[in-house]
């Protein structure tokens, strides 16, 4: 089957085109701001899916990649005057390397022990970064307005960052899709089902897990670098916010873990819900309540999420919505 006849390819390209085109053609800044956050959510959820959905390891502290990527990115762009794109790429490489190192330690743990360790890592990194004076300590780093000049001033810089984020969103979806279809992905699924059996079958769990843990940090780190470049300021509490980690898990459950479209659709729906509730003074208080009830219902009654549920009702769609 040739690549061009795969519905998934066109779904991903279509999503990217819609995201880029809808605000792009009208110059609609408000729409762009909304979709920017949605795209970030999709990036976080679909990379987290590689760990939770594919490998069965619950990473509760996944936001550490995003935050560290942001710190490296801001540090390179402001302190060392790097252009944005190389800074983001180097930030992602650094974060993936660090993740590989962390992974070798904590991936020896299974189940809830692993989950606790990921929370511990996020908190340890947050506390540590709060004490690094070169990174501004607990008050973080501020970008000078002049960093936007090479991109044609702040207004144009915001558009450029937006399109870059859409690119990373697409890359995240393609990455999820390719891994899902690869032999490597098959190994991950085997680990998810039964780690001991997988190693008997010739899969090397320690290696596979460390690699996927490191890979799942790469694109979120790039997204973090872009996000905080746009943000103009980076602070430990904002960069390593456990709520964002857990929200990514909620998104994944909503759409359906283990599925490429599931992660994306879940992130999209959750983020729309969040931004609708954000500014209504009555409901902004209840955002967490509604999200919590939603999550509980999914966990108890539809553990496959939206895509899993669709797949059960219309088995033919399963081939399209991988």
């Amino acid at each position, binding site marked *: 089957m040739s690549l061009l006849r795969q519905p998934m390819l066109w779904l991903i390209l279509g999503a990217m085109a819609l995201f880029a085109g809808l605000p792009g053609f009208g110059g609609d800044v408000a729409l762009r701001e909304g979709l920017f956050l949605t795209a970030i959510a999709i990036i976080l959820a679909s990379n987290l899916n590689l760990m*939770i959905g594919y490998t*069965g390891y*619950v990473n*509760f502290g996944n936001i550490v990649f995003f935050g560290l990527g942001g710190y490296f990115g801001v540090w390179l762009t402001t302190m060392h005057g790097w252009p944005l794109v190389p800074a983001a790429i180097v930030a992602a490489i650094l974060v993936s390397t660090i993740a590989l190192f962390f992974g070798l*330690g*904590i991936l*020896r*743990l299974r*189940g*809830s*022990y692993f*989950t*606790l*360790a990921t*929370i*511990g*890592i996020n*908190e*340890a990194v947050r*506390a*540590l970064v*709060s*004490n690094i004076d070169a990174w501004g*300590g*607990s008050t973080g780093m501020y970008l000078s307005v002049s960093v936007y000049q090479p991109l044609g001033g702040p207004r144009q810089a915001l558009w450029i960052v937006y399109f870059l984020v859409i690119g990373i969103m697409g890359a995240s979806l393609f990455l999820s899709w390719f891994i899902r279809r690869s032999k490597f992905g098959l190994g991950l699924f085997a680990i998810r089902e039964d780690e001991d059996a997988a190693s008997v079958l010739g899969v090397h769990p320690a290696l596979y897990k460390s690699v996927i843990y490191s890979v799942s940090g790469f694109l979120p780190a790039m997204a973090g670098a872009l996000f905080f470049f746009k943000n103009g300021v980076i602070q430990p509490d904002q960069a390593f916010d*456990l709520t964002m980690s*857990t929200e990514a*898990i909620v998104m994944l*459950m909503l759409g359906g873990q283990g599925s490429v479209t599931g992660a994306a659709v879940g992130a999209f729906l959750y983020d729309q819900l969040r931004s609708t509730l954000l500014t209504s003074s009555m409901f902004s*208080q*209840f*955002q*967490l*309540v*509604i*999200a*919590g*009830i939603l*999550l*509980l219902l999914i*966990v*108890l009654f539809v*553990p496959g999420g939206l895509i899993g549920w669709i797949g059960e009702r219309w088995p033919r769609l399963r081939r399209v919505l991988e």
Partner: protein
Amino acid sequence: MFGVIASMVDGLLLGAVYGLAAIGLTLIWGVMNIINLTHGALIALGMFGVYFLTARVGGSPYVALLPVAVLGFVAGLAIYGLSVHRVIARPPLMSLLSTFAVNMVIIGAGTAFWSTSIYNLPFSVPGITWQGFTFTGAHMLAAAVAVVVAGALYLFMRHTRLGKAIRAVANNRQAAELMGIPSGRILAVAFALGVALAAVAGGLIATLFPFTVLSGSGYQLKSFVVTVLGGLGNPAGALVGGLLLGLIEGGVTPFIAVSWTPVIEFVLFVLILIAFPKGLFARGAAR
């Protein structure tokens, strides 16, 4: 030198309260292998329980702990029935998420009712001054209550039928059922007990420090650290772990800036988790 000793004594007093909170978490883990992510929310509810019973109804906060414990127990039963019972046999992700979902609901509703503003129990007990350092009465009373509650729990687990049944289920659920122990009911009681302990610990913390509806999450993280120090699933270890954490906090603060304390705590947490997943005090620790 006196400063270091004073600081360590203060740490121990506080550590007893950390220990009590962690017992609630570790009890649930030991009996049903579930990490209760409503723990922090229930600590916060315990704070508000004591606050409202004391500030609005009147009376001593220590008396208010009793109704708070009962309410905590009832809340625990409800949470168990709603979110835990159905996922107990499923992969850990499911119980993590279902308890986390309830946590979101509680925190969200709490934020809506009480906002995230600071609450403060206007309460002070005369303390003891030694070499210029003062140990406040509230700290000493809180530690005493924590130790008494932990002791009572120990006696309950050792010497009552229900306590023995809980330990039997923790040890081996199938075997316990074969012996005629209704494991479903025992699990619910154990969960509720763990939640009630969290609420009581929260109530004690409210007598010491101001708090918000979000304060629980910080103490939940501390409970994780304590549980890992003492060994997941080991209630006696949790109390020792709490005292140890208090001692570490008190022992290091005179020498380094306070902002480094959490770094030490969490690095220790991750390292111990990797090296001794069964806790520091487990005999023949193995993975």
